[in-house]
């Protein structure tokens, strides 16, 4: 299955950039958790496991995987439903499966599975053009995991599934009129949804986002603190382990959701630009894999995986600067979190897989 010559087509530059981001993340986790803590070592092990997972997803031809995608999808759905019944509860939501040594979060893997399923479905060579029927099926395939994950509840992760559907459908030739229509409906529906569709606490969150000062001690607190953390870093930063906001816990979950704020505080604008540059490079390089892909399946698979990743990166960094409502979305490759790390590296294994096999038949 793994031919020797393929080895020479592995995108080492992409792997190197990904590892550079992981290294920055490890450094920040080390800093915010006060040294080589248990959390830090967990992340190191997760990185190792993730690289193994990457090797696995890279080795198996993506076309073989795609052929089994309906089974994989089915297995994934069963797992997600299983979590709803047998998962362990933390922080009020049921997301994890306790494996004893490790808490697995299946929803992290659902993104890659959905990307694979949609790529297979929309990228089938024999389909000449995207039909409404195709779109309906794709939307349904997305809706099932979306609803299950939203039930956990984990709206943040559920929402990351939507960019997969949108981007894959978009490149698969979804007519532009749908996109315009969706935009118009979204704009018109937003006030109605705000008024009738949201719970009080959700409305409060949004209005707090628009004016955090109205509730500086409650919901607006994290947002204000995030801006203070970022802004106080300045150009050069306060120095490694010298941040006050993260170190003294003014910013909650600093090693997790707000790790980028801590990076901005301790490494300054310089560190921010380096990290943003690395992420941008990784995304562009991966997009290149989509362009170079041998078939539509490969291109869609890359784009599906990448859209969830990109959405999460941009949203988390925006939130880190206090510019988006606080939502429990981690920063892939940097934030603490084993499942996220393994799932992200595994999905980049798929990207490498597609690029590596661009010359094979």
């Amino acid at each position, binding site marked *: 299955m793994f031919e020797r010559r393929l080895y020479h087509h592995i995108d080492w530059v992409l792997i190197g950039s990904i590892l550079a981001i992981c290294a920055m993340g490890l450094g920040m986790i080390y800093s915010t958790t006060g040294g080589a803590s248990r959390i830090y070592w967990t992340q190191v092990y997760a990185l190792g496991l993730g690289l193994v997972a990457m090797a696995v997803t890279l080795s198996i031809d993506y076309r073989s995987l795609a052929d089994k995608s309906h089974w994989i999808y089915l297995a994934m759905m069963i797992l997600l439903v299983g979590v709803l019944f047998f998962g362990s509860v933390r922080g009020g939501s049921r997301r994890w499966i306790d494996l004893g040594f490790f808490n697995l979060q299946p929803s992290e893997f659902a993104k890659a599975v959905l990307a694979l399923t949609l790529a297979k479905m929309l990228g089938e060579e024999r389909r*000449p053009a995207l039909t409404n029927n195709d779109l309906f099926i794709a939307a349904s395939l997305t809706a099932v995991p979306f609803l299950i994950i939203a039930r956990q509840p984990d709206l943040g992760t559920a929402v990351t599934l939507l960019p997969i559907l949108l*981007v894959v459908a*978009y*490149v698969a*030739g979804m007519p532009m009129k749908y996109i315009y229509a969706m935009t118009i409906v979204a704009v018109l529906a937003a006030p109605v949804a705000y008024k009738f569709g949201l719970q009080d606490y959700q409305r409060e969150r949004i209005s707090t986002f628009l004016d955090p000062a109205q509730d500086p*001690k*409650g919901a607006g*607190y994290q947002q204000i*603190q995030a*801006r*203070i*953390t*970022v*802004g*106080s*870093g*300045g*150009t050069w930063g306060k120095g490694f382990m010298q941040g*006050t*906001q993260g170190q*003294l*816990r*003014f910013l909650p979950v600093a090693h997790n959701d707000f790790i980028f704020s801590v990076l*901005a505080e301790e490494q*300054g*604008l310089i560190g*921010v*630009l380096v990290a*943003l540059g690395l*992420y*941008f490079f990784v*995304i*562009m390089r991966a*997009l290149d894999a*989509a*362009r170079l892909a041998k078939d*539509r399946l490969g*291109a869609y698979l890359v*784009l599906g995986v990448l859209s969830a990743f*990109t959405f999460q990166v*941009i949203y988390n*960094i*925006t939130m880190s*600067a206090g*510019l988006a409502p606080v939502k429990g979305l981690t920063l892939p490759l940097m934030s603490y979190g084993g499942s996220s790390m393994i799932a992200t590296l595994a999905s980049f294994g798929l990207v490498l897989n597609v690029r590596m096999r661009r010359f094979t038949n």
Partner: protein
Amino acid sequence: MAIAEDRRRLTHRLTVLRVTIGVAFVMLACGFWFFQVVQHAQFKEMAENNHQRTLTLRAPRGIIYDRAGKLLVENRNSFNISIVREHTKDLDHTIRVLARVAGVEESFVREVVDRHRREPSYRPIVVIQDATLAQVASVSARKLDFELPDVLVQEVPTRQYLDQMAAHVFGYVSEASDKDVAEDESLKSGDIVGKSGLEKIYNELLMGADGAKRVVVNSMGREIRVLDEEPPAQGKRLQLTLDFDLQKALEDGFRTSGYNGASVILDPRTGEVLAFSSVPAYDPNAFSTGIDSASWNSLNTDPLRPLQDRAIQGRYPAGSTFKMAVAAAALEEGVITPDFKVYCPGHGVFYGRSFACSLPNGRGHGVMDLRHAIEHSCNVYFYTVGNMVGIDKIHKWATLLGLGEKTGIDLPNEVQGLVPSPEWKRANTKNHEKWYAGETISVSIGQGAVALTPISEAVYIAALANGGTRVTPHLLRAVDEGGGWQPFTPPAAKSVVALKPETIQAIHDGLWLVVNGVGTGARARMAGYDVSGKTGTAQVISNEGAKAAKGKTDKDLRDNGWFVFFAPRDNPEIAGAVMVEHGGHGGVTAAPIARHVLDTYFAKRDNRPLPAPPIKVGDTIGPAVAIPPAPVKAVAGGAGTPQ
């Protein structure tokens, strides 16, 4: 064909995605640049406010000593428990938990917080002053549990007085009011300032300068480390002219008598105040830790007015103590000589009205010269002389001797007494009434409109003792500004009149006879010390008024008793005035208090053991050890001679 078109569309849409992502990243970079470069200074300050707290270290006030270096007022350490609203996420919750943990009413905590609502939120609001150790322990434990991260426990110096002793001299301290802060820009809210007494007059010396400590705290409000610390500078040390033992003797005297009143004892040569008392007093310690409103209200509504400093703010008819001023006026103006004699039949008729003398049942003193008129406190003699001298000259000499004037003592809010004059009457009556000669008769024995503060009586008797120098009474003796004790320059005398030697001699003789002859001041007699003095008994209310007064006990209507004195007769070292409210005859109630002070003074001077506090004997007080009655006349002949 289809593949190629498909490929083209893919490439096109990939480019759109690329551009979209590129724009998003550029916007993110701009956002970070805006926060981290453009608004950096502002956010840097906010971050520092987050984790740096500046704690005020309250300066201990200056310590106060008596003239011999005995400690009178010091500071003790107490604990304040405060809320820092800046760090409070849920003020209601904090108030609730704090009230429960400290065992105080929630409404009380809320009221305190409300009162300080307009202050900057970084300034701690002191909720509990002088917290008990149990309160400190339970609040600190909750702090460690992160339950009360926004509550601060601070050790602060707190003023400590000797219970009620000399309360009106020291005054009291409390937190500066909004008005204080508005008027004095060196003050800040929360400062402890003197509100009355010496604490107020010498506040600037006593206050010191607060220090500050900058600490790093984490989000739970726990101190991580100290950044820098500027220690507080303690207020200046003051040494007073007061003598602790005399002060104690004076207060013991009043306590034993059971009467209210006031007294000032001073050194007639310098004006140094040796003892100063106003009874009833209050406990200044109650103010140091923030007096509660119930205690404050009861102090203010108490009909006995314990907050009033009777020695400088109470005005009382002078009674017979005024007679020496009439004598001095008559002698100095050359109206009479000391040998001028008047026959006293028990009353005198002036301007068609009969004025009674001092003896009961209308008995008379017979023929009196000045010395004996003072000794017997003969009213008829002074009616006659006063009538001869006239109100203008009486007013002139009383004023020269300090009566009806402010003494200028270093205490706040001294009031002026009154020695009436025709000008005063014209200015203060509705129809600008003129002075009636008959009024002079009442004034001659210290009645009528005469109203004097005990301290002005003390200055007056001191001026008579020292020959006419109206000393300025003062309490401050020395200040230590850091380089050792620097003597305080005593204030200059208010006025100096050189009384003629025969005036001084005659008055001193008379005053000596009051105590050592058959006079009314016998209870102040001390063998060998030539105590000289004059009693006074002043009507509180006219006889007609007494009938009209209702709801008052007899005691409220009893006369005020005075005793003014100096000793020894020649070269006096100590002088003073004792006023006993509703004490009846001054010789009975006021003189024994003075005697105990004098006894203590001379015992101290002559290195004898100090006398024990006096004891109550009937309606009067006497020395602890009863002295055998002095023989009325030297017994002639042998010891065994039968009488």
